[in-house]
């Protein structure tokens, strides 16, 4: 099953990426090459096999820990916003969303 340029456009939108038309073709070729490799997985019988999301499951350490619900970090708003593209009065600025 090969991907089409419509698939590429749909996935790019889902990933919030804007590929140029010439890039779409190039990406299509590369991804189809990649998925030919992925098709090898079909040959493996995985009936009754549990998916392994995480190596810790093999180690039996799967219980999610919960820590006490208290703030442990100091307030570092200024340091945290040093790298922000646009800030005003300690708030992150984004384009208008609601008219």
């Amino acid at each position, binding site marked *: 099953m090969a*991907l089409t340029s419509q698939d590429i456009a749909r996935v790019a939108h889902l990933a919030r*990426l804007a590929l140029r038309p010439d890039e779409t073709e190039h990406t299509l070729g590369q991804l189809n090459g990649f998925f030919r490799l992925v098709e090898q*997985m079909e040959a*493996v019988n995985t009936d009754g096999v549990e998916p392994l999301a995480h190596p810790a499951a093999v180690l039996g*350490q799967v219980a999610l820990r919960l*820590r006490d619900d208290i703030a442990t970090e100091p307030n570092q708003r200024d340091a945290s916003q040093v*790298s922000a593209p646009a800030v005003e009065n300690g708030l992150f600025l984004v384009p208008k969303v609601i008219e």
Partner: protein
Amino acid sequence: MSALHDLSVAQLAAKLAAKEVSSVEVAQHFLARIHSQDALGAFLATDEEQSLAQAGAADARLAAGERTPLLGVPLAHKDVFVTRDFPTTAGSKMLANYRSPFDATVVNRLGAGGAGMVSLGKLNCDEFAMGSGNDNSAYKPVQNPWDTSRVPGGSSGGSAAAVAARIVPAATGTDTGGSIRQPASLSGITGIKPTYGRCSRYGMVAFASSLDQAGPMARSALDCALLLSAMAGPDLDRDSTSLDMPAADYAAELIAANTQAAGTKPLQGLRIGLPTQFFGAGCSADVLAAVRGALTELEKLGATLVDVSLPLTELSIPVYYVIAPAEASSNLSRYDGVRYGHRAAEYTDLEDMYKKSRTEGFGDEVTRRIMIGTYVLSHGYYDAYYLKAQKIRHLIAEDFQKVFSQCDIIAGPVSPTVAWKIGERSDDPVASYLADIYTLSSSLAGLPGMSVPAGFGAHGMPVGLQLIGNYFKEAQLLSTAHRFQQATDWHQRKPGAAA
């Protein structure tokens, strides 16, 4: 007297403790070497003032009588560890000029919050740790000190090149599918990826969360052991996948291993499994010859070699390249141009801002993996790709446990070839994925693995021997490597660039 940069981490620490040299003097020596070897491309950031301040603090701790094993010794961090004192880019334009408000746990433990090592800066890597030649760095490629027209390996290529060129005595790296072991092999140094969950991921720029693991890279197993003892250990409140297992004093175990009863061989009783799939036609003859030479040496030291089978080795490639991009596409969705990271200069609305910022900020390989990951997680494909890959991942992990009933550690090559020419593989992503064949399966299983210098192959380029252990067997891997390094001098060879 050896020059400071020819000393090991252990030797530098001893000199500092004996007050033969100060940490500031050591830092100055290495900073001068870093600047003289700028063409290597190993560093993305240095800051003399910060490094010397850290060295001054280490000297104060030394003067106060503190004697911890790494105090005052310099290192540098792969640029995926966030640091307060230096910028953090993860090799991406997306994070140009990013300043973290905190230090990664590993950085803190090795530095001021613990061992007192001195950071000399941030090391180049493939963008978001995605790559195996370091040519996916958005800033500059890294040269291999053994042949500057060749790659150092990746994604921790800056770390490997810097250690090999002796412009740092040790470095941190991260390994998702081989990113510590493969550059260590291609650059002729020693590196270990611990069991998944051993080192905290807190403050590591995320690539694939169920695979990412930090580890040390240095010239010898002993130096790696010293660093790993300081890096590893639980970080339960900050990393939900951190294992509740204390770090061992790995170096003490190696030094203790030096005393043995007369008449016994150092590796007597050690069973080394050789997966037939690691020694097939896919591996080039020069690499196989070096690996077989190392195995003969291990036999002389008392180990026995047994043939074992990891039948899903080839399948580990598609399985990894479904799971890792899936997790990456999720992790990298945070880069939206709002709180940090690149924002496009012009856009029409919020969605346009997201799309333009992300498209401009991510390089080709990262974009490709986000596309793959988004596709395999999308409606209608999740079961066929992502779930199927996770099921095979389970089978791969089980296969390793079967093999570990027949042997204590597994050995083989790290990479099918020696380092290739810079740019040679840049337009064939699938070919470059295939070259990860020997490192991916242990990553998927979460097992510890290392690369140990084992000789030289084609073009005089280094070859590493991979050792894979069972869960938590870092000490066994390091001690096997240490015994090997006591009997060989491959790890002491230095490239012309390190003169």
